[in-house]
């Protein structure tokens, strides 16, 4: 088992996820320092992968690297009879050592238009009442925040966003809806998110976006990627409908 200190104060661990993947763990909680390392390794692997590399999946505090053990073994075993996991772990260690966290780098900012309230945001009033404010204040707070995309998961194109103001945090609905329409923008606890596909769910729905977060015919198929910053821009019902017409 390879376990060693990284260049920074945080310990970096390499753990096997079965016989064909290694999880590079940068920490155990959600914060922007750990996130920058996750992002740096993901970017690095996109441009400089290795023979047998299949893909990597960034998460809140880790990057999981999937590989083909046979190709790794044949390409890199130098006769010392090392296992594919050891070979990939060693390569990841070397890459992590050289990772440069570019603090200056500006993240990509993606504006997502949202029509708040009305039939698109049936729970907006509830969120306002729960937090003792007007619906206008909820909209103002939600649309003035900057949200970091920590990871994409749960559903195609679904962003796990950090940065929701405590002031409008609201518990999930006691009974989940059977189907949440595509594009719904919701709040659950101290998280906010957008539903790229229609699924059941218990989030408080405050609005809807006409923007497509999941576009299977595009490459990449997701509007957002780990590391992006999202801003929600309020639009009217008319603007929502126009947007839909122009994109169809």
């Amino acid at each position, binding site marked *: 088992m390879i376990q060693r200190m990284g260049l920074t104060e945080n310990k970096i661990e390499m753990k096997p*996820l079965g016989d064909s993947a290694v999880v590079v763990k940068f920490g155990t909680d959600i914060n922007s320092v750990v996130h920058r390392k996750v992002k740096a390794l993901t970017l690095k692997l996109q441009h400089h992968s290795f023979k047998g590399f299949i893909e990597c*999946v960034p998460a*809140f*505090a880790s990057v*999981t690297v999937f590989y083909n053990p046979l190709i790794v073994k044949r390409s890199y075993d130098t006769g010392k009879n090392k296992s594919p996991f050891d070979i990939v772990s060693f390569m990841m260690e070397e890459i992590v050592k050289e990772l440069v966290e570019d603090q200056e780098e500006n993240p990509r900012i993606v504006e997502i238009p949202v029509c708040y309230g009305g039939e698109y945001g049936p729970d907006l009033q509830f969120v306002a009442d729960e937090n003792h404010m007007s619906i206008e204040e909820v909209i103002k707070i939600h649309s003035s925040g900057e949200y970091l995309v920590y990871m994409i998961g749960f559903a195609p194109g679904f962003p796990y966003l950090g940065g929701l103001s405590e002031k409008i945090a609201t518990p999930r609905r006691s009974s989940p809806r059977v189907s949440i329409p595509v594009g719904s923008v919701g709040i659950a606890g101290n998280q906010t998110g957008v539903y790229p596909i229609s699924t059941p769910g218990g989030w408080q729905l405050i609005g809807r976006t006409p923007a497509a977060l999941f576009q*299977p015919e595009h490459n990449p198929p*997701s509007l957002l*990627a780990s590391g992006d910053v999202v801003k929600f821009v309020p639009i009217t019902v008319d603007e929502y409908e126009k947007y839909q017409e122009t994109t169809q």
Partner: protein
Amino acid sequence: MSIKVIRPGLLASIQDLGRYGFQKYGVIVSGAMDSYALRIANLLIGNQEGEAAIEVTLMGTSLQFEEDSLIAITGGNLSPKIEGEAVPLWRPVLIKKGSILQFTASQSGCRAYVTVAGGFDIPQIMESKSTYLRGGIGGFKGRSLQAGDVLPFQEKTKASAPLFARLKQNLKNRSFGSVEWYVPAGHVMNTSERVIRVIKGMEFDKFSSSSREQFFEQEFQITPQSDRMGYRLSGPELQLEQPFELLSEAVAEGTIQVPKDGNPIILLADRQTTGGYPRIAQISSVDLPVVAQLKPGEKIRFKEITREESERLYLKREQDIEEIKTGLSLKKWSL
């Protein structure tokens, strides 16, 4: 060159080895549940091993071939019949124009794979022909097969031409012809109890000592709430030593996660890309095809092996497949 779906049966869909490279966008892998069977089904008829196949589930599927076609059927023995006559598995088969292939009942296993020489002429979406059923993407029109669907396939490959010619010569008036040789399949077993090899999972140590013991000592049953996404198991309820917060992270095919109710779930082809439940174990890659052939109601036990052993088994299986490839290239001319 095409196949017409007469009846789709319980569930039939187009699958290849899966859609890789897009999990970071939340796009699930999909693909054949029994990837070993899919690979062999392709190799038998001279295709690239990752070509798409029809994955047939349990029974009821019925397909009509509109031309003389070189095909292979592998995976579970779902009693395939052509015009009422039993068809052998794990070998090339020439089926005569107009004949109907039916899957009638499971003798062993849960899923069968039908490949055609040349492969299906279906567009790739995100570099794969696999059907992502819940997302409505890929495969044939993004969905499972329905009666009346016509699945086109490509011109057969050069590699399969000699075999096609020899089988055709011997066909005479029969609706299908095959060969004497076959690729032995050890993993589709018809025993009452199976042992699945696993590596300890990422959060194994967070489970109570009694749960850790029960996991390896007791039987688990595949419940009816099992599908391509995952198998839900019933057996001893597994509990954590103490609750803790786990950040969502990537999961893999064969990850065994345990939600709060204590009943483990084996994640399979249509799993989500990430998960937040503690992972008690990870199934060894070589045993995933065994799991894919399990039916609801069947029972399994888990046996611990080391990660190193699992890697050795993986490399050994790949060597075996290479030997099969070599063997098949020599058999091309013989019946």
